[in-house]
């Protein structure tokens, strides 16, 4: 029963991949070795494509692997398998969060963890900047990209418009300037 296997395999990935979408990648390579759903080359191409299309990377990868193994239904089942552990664990934590936050060990852990999460956001930001500046499929040079980026930073701090409107402006400028 392919759907059962898919659900179970992705449930395990969802349970053991701690730390976000990138953490699922090693598990996917192991799947490529164990099953004939997709090979390593396909997987590598797909990771590259997933990074540039919308949607969280982990979810994109589960959908892709599931479709390769069992069509659209397979894609949906693999994705549900991936998110099921998160869903259950988070609901459990939500129920106890108010109580445990008063515990001094937990509040100490939060005290340390929050700046670390802010650091991870900054590090992710730097990786994005590196990608944009060095690897983007672009003919524009470094200073042009950087100048545009600085303009966007000023816009996002100053203009009080919805981020989606700003993202659309970004898309239009991207097409006009052929970024």
């Amino acid at each position, binding site marked *: 029963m392919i759907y059962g296997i898919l659900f179970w395999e992705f449930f395990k990935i969802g349970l053991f991949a701690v730390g976000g979408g990138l953490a699922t990648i090693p598990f996917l390579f192991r799947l490529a070795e164990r099953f004939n759903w997709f090979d390593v080359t396909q997987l590598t191409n797909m990771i590259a494509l997933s990074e540039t299309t919308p949607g*969280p990377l982990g979810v994109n990868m589960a959908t892709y692997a599931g*479709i390769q193994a069992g069509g659209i239904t397979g894609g949906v089942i693999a994705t549900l398998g991936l998110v099921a552990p*998160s869903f259950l664990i988070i609901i459990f934590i939500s129920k106890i969060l108010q109580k445990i936050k008063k515990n001094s060990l937990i509040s100490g852990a*939060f005290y340390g963890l929050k700046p670390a999460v802010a650091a*991870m956001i900054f*590090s992710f930001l730097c990786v994005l900047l590196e990608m944009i500046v060095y690897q983007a499929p672009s003919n524009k040079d470094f200073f042009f990209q950087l100048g545009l*980026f600085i303009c*966007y930073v000023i816009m996002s701090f100053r203009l009080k418009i919805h981020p989606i409107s700003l993202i659309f402006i970004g898309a239009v400028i991207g097409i006009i300037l052929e970024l």
Partner: protein
Amino acid sequence: MKTYFELFFSFLKIGMFTFGGGYAMLPLLQKEVVGKGWATDDELLDYYAIGQVTPGIIAINVSTFIGYKHKGILGAVCTMFGMILPSILIISSLVYGLVYIWENSYIQHAFAGMRLMITALLLSMAVKMVQKSVFDLWTLFILIISFVMVFFGNVSIFFIVIFSCVTGIILIQIKRHFR
């Protein structure tokens, strides 16, 4: 009933404009969720911190938190499905031979432009998250050490989570002791 649709559509929007993963969706999430009063900035940071240390994709963990907090289990189902639906649709279209849509040069330019704008938006969010998590020299210390470890040292996220939690717990105990 209206609230469930609102939750679903908000997260559908967020899912459509998330490139990469959980951190990239932060600007949009903040606007939608804090703007609508579903959670505060502080709660968002808590959710990211928990999402980082619990299994699964951060984007899904955070969506589940917000849906559950606002409307219980059914609310969590709405936010989670909103988050995964764009991925399922877009990846299905890729696999079933519509790759040319995403490889079209206009789409690529638009995506490149969007990514630049999203990075700029993320910078303003990152600054905000630092303000929310750094209260004293100790938290600033954790932030800087974590950043250096993740970005320059390529240290695993798992280690940084352990480091920051343990440091936080020890610091809180020391502070209590000397008060």
